[in-house]
């Protein structure tokens, strides 16, 4: 499952997330979205490198990014 998910149609390709990512796994796609922007993305193969640090989401002005992490399973 993905750790970081982009709502591509809302992305404006500003690259603030690109700059923010400590793992350097975000980049802009070649394709254009409906608004004419190159959306940010993390390649499927890079999802594993994501540490779920959330910094990309913190910098995204357009509410594009949701970040997940594996739940810490509580022993109940």
């Amino acid at each position, binding site marked *: 499952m993905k750790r970081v998910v982009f709502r591509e149609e809302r992305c404006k390709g500003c690259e603030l997330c690109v700059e923010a990512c400590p793992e350097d796994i975000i980049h802009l796609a070649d394709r254009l979205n409906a608004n004419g922007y190159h959306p940010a993305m993390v390649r499927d193969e890079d999802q594993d490198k994501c540490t779920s640090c*959330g910094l990309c989401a913190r910098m995204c002005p357009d509410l594009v990014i949701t970040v997940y992490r594996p739940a810490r399973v509580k022993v109940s």
Partner: protein
Amino acid sequence: MAEPVMEVVARPPESMEDVPLHYCPGCTHGIIHRLVAEVIDELGIREKTIGVASVGCSVLNYNYFKTDFQQAAHGRAPAVATGIKRVHPDKIVFTYQGDGDLASIGTAEIVHAAMRGEKITVIFVNNAVYGMTSGQMAPTTLVGQKTTTSPRGRSVEGQGYPIRMSEMLATLQTPAYIARVAVTDPGKVHRAKLAIRKAFRTQLEGKAFSLVEIISTCPVNWGMTPNEAIAWANQNMLAYYPLGEIKVPPEVS
């Protein structure tokens, strides 16, 4: 191997509407909106909060928050907020204002709302320029900065040094909380949120006026890419507008 169960680290706040924002790519207004909404979520005050939008790029922010809203005339958001809060002292009232709005045309209104100690929270977005009207000089424009009405760069002779609103307002005795933060890297964004939360909590506790000045960017009118703008702000704006808590009454912590 079984898929791990995932939990959410970061997602759009509840208090924001799920609609695209009209801001330019990389404009930090969006970050600030999110922080305010996150604080509203966390304090659980969405249903008792009333926002006041000002005239500037953020004029439409009543479309983005799930709270009641009033759109105020240019510069007058603190007066509008005063009216609302005095009628509903039990509600949480905040304004969201740009630097042209708050530090230029609205100077009298912000000074006097602060002096009276209106129990409102002011989110003051300082991007050193008039964004909405396409990049004219603001009172906060840095010396030497070129804008469409300071084509040779702001000069001290005739235009003076930029105004530091937070420091100016902090000379007043009444306001409870005044802080300056920035949203120009993830760490600063985090501290910005803490300050915003403190400002709202100040109001929740029934204390006087609170204001958070947020150093922001306007990539389009600065003529930079969003990341260049971030770097420029960090280098130049923070040198003139130091970050930190400027006024904290002993009781607020």
